[in-house]
């Protein structure tokens, strides 16, 4: 699997897009989606709420388990992906595209986000 070069990654397997007008898109990686199995329920943060880098902000439920969703950055949630709420399988079929989870107006970004290559090395272990 290939991780898009233009994205940055958290060790908790979220990806973060380059900000446009201060707003970045967040999703989970293909690696994470494969590890979860079929996602059947996505509880996403509410629009207008503040998320903190490294803190849980929702959950993803698959056939076998429930996993916390962590925000890779701090900021205010500006939009959530309603398509994923109604069809969580998008997280599996298009984790880097139609399966994005939420958008956030970034106020603070941790220094330890990974590049695509660093993330690939992180998941290879």
């Amino acid at each position, binding site marked *: 699997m290939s991780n898009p070069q233009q994205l940055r990654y958290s060790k908790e397997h979220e990806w973060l897009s380059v900000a446009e007008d201060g707003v970045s898109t967040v999703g989970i990686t293909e690696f994470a989606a*494969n*590890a979860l*199995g*079929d996602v*059947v*329920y996505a509880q996403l943060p509410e629009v207008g709420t503040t998320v903190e880098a490294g803190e849980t902000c929702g959950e993803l*439920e698959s*056939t*076998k388990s*429930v996993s916390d969703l962590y925000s890779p950055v701090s900021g205010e949630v500006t939009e959530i992906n309603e398509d994923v709420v109604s069809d969580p*399988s998008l997280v*599996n079929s298009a984790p880097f595209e139609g399966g994005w989870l939420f958008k956030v107006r970034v106020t603070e970004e941790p220094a330890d986000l990974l590049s695509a290559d660093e993330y690939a090395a992180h998941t290879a272990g």
Partner: protein
Amino acid sequence: MSSTEPLRHTALDAVHRSLGATMTDFAGWDMPLRYGSERDEHLAVRTKAGLFDLSHMGEITVTGPGAAALLNYALVGNIASVGVGRARYTMICQADGGILDDLIVYRLAETEYMVVANASNAQVVLDALTERAAGFDAEVRDDRDAYALIAVQGPESPGILKSLTDADLDGLKYYAGLPGTVAGVPALIARTGYTGEDGFELFVRPEHAVELWQALTKAGEGAGLVPCGLSCRDTLRLEAGMPLYGHELTTSLTPFDAGLGRVVKFEKEGDFVGREALTEAAARAEQNPPRVLVGLVAEGRRVPRAGYAVVAGGAVIGEVTSGAPSPTLGKPIAMAYVDAAHAAPGAEGVGVDVRGSHEPYEVVALPFYRRQK
């Protein structure tokens, strides 16, 4: 399972890896959890066919002139009455009536039975049978390494199997087994399964497993057969309302507590382990109904998991034993033990505490799914 024990691998291990399976530690075995989407695998078994490696199951052979008498003493069912070529669902209990395991017993010959135990309990069952065999003219043999077990399940499975065997599959009834040849490989062909569909379980020598798997894969190509992992096996059995040891069945429950008192045959001849305690358990269940195993169907999308509390009117009235999103119903479902007062289908105000939030659930009779015959 102790983490110091190395994982055991089935004879099909390399096949699973070449198919890109996601593997999981199940009762000390490295088993396929899923190959692709577990939902697709589930639906394939419901509508076409699925191929499973179940070689982790524990086979124990009991032979000798006293084999029937031993099993009648060691197990709660009337095993002596099982005809040659037939199988029986039964249980092995402790002296206090607690369930040690649920089993399928195949009568292979007048004086030969094969007992199939859950992987997690195989050693416990083997030890108990060995101990209980004292004084009987019978031998208990650990045959776990003598068999690989491949299952073909789903409505297309008879057609797929027919193309590979001359055995009389039409004459092979549900819960029957006969020796035969499949794809040139000697096999015990059993019409059993754990999916709620028609299907077969094929017990073969481990060195024949890859050959048989590949022949079945090829024969099933046009019929939509797909390899299936343990994840969909769990959702299939849950929809079919079938209990799983460690979830619906434990040593702290008797068969009567589990709503499966019918497997206990008091009328059989002679004593059996647990008879006294089970007689009391049956009377207790009559006078003071224990919690009842029911089905729950979610109104929302959150999945109840094993161990979650079932609530009504702010009080805990039961506990979820198994829960999963149901591919067939398109909603989360669960099995749960609930107080008898709340166990009737349609009981009002029943919910599950899903990590702090009380989600509404409908109480339904089991099973969730029954195949059209």
